[in-house]
């Protein structure tokens, strides 16, 4: 199965990258950008075929490796 994982910074955590992108966009003449947040996007291709098992495995992966739960949230989509 395929799993798509989004890792984003928790609310309130400073996002220097997002801030810099916002700034660069406005320097390029893009107006009306209120906010930019940058996260990670990870695509996993897994041998597992059971959606529930995949979900719980990927959750485990997020907790153990993919996200830094002190400052990041993660969300998982299975397909």
């Amino acid at each position, binding site marked *: 199965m395929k799993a798509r994982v989004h890792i984003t910074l928790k609310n309130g955590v400073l996002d*220097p*990258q997002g801030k*810099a*992108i916002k700034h*660069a966009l406005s*320097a*390029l003449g893009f107006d009306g950008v209120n906010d930019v947040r*940058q996260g990670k996007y990870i695509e996993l291709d897994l041998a597992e075929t059971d959606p529930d098992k995949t979900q719980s495995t990927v959750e485990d992966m997020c907790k153990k490796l993919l996200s830094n739960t002190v400052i990041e949230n993660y969300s998982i989509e299975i397909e």
Partner: protein
Amino acid sequence: MKTAVIVFPASNCDRDMVVALEKITGKKPHIIWHQDEDIPEVDLIALPGGFSFGDYLRCGAMAARSPVTKRVIEHADRGGNVIGVCNGFQVLTETGLLPGALMRNESLKFICKDVKLRVDNNDTPFTNAYAQGQVINIPMAHHDGNYFADDDTLQALEDEGRIAFRYVDDSGDATKSANPNGSRNNIAGIISRRKNILGMMPHPERLIEEAQGGTDGLGFFESMINALN
């Protein structure tokens, strides 16, 4: 030889480049802030190392879109000479002046160490003071120096002799273990088709005095004196 060094926010090897150029040319380079609209007439523009715009999003991406970079591109299009070292190389690929891209090092780590480079084409304005095939010692310090280009581009670079420097071992062989960052074909530096633009990851400007541990970087600057004076 008249030179200019471009300074982006968080460039940090700009002073080192200025010092090296001044030492070798005897003339202080023009220092150009990224928002300046004009660059004076010069023989060489240098894009220094550092972390322009924090290297956020992609290394060199934001600098490549800075106002002054348009002037750099025009200068290059007119056949003017441009060098980009480290972050400067990343900027050059982001502008498209040089092909390919610099990706995260294979180890995913920042690596600072001396590496051996082989001069694979000494018939350029930036390498003529070295012998063809000469192995030199140059420090590297980067997180994203893993050179990538697709097969066709790579083949063209090879066929056209556009690989200026390659990572090699002590005996001059471009082996896998001599490759510090995973670059395709051990590429450390390339030149443009017209030979007026050079991008390289390692830092010749850091090795121009015995006190710094050697002078292998001098040849890089002496080449330009030979070619451009």
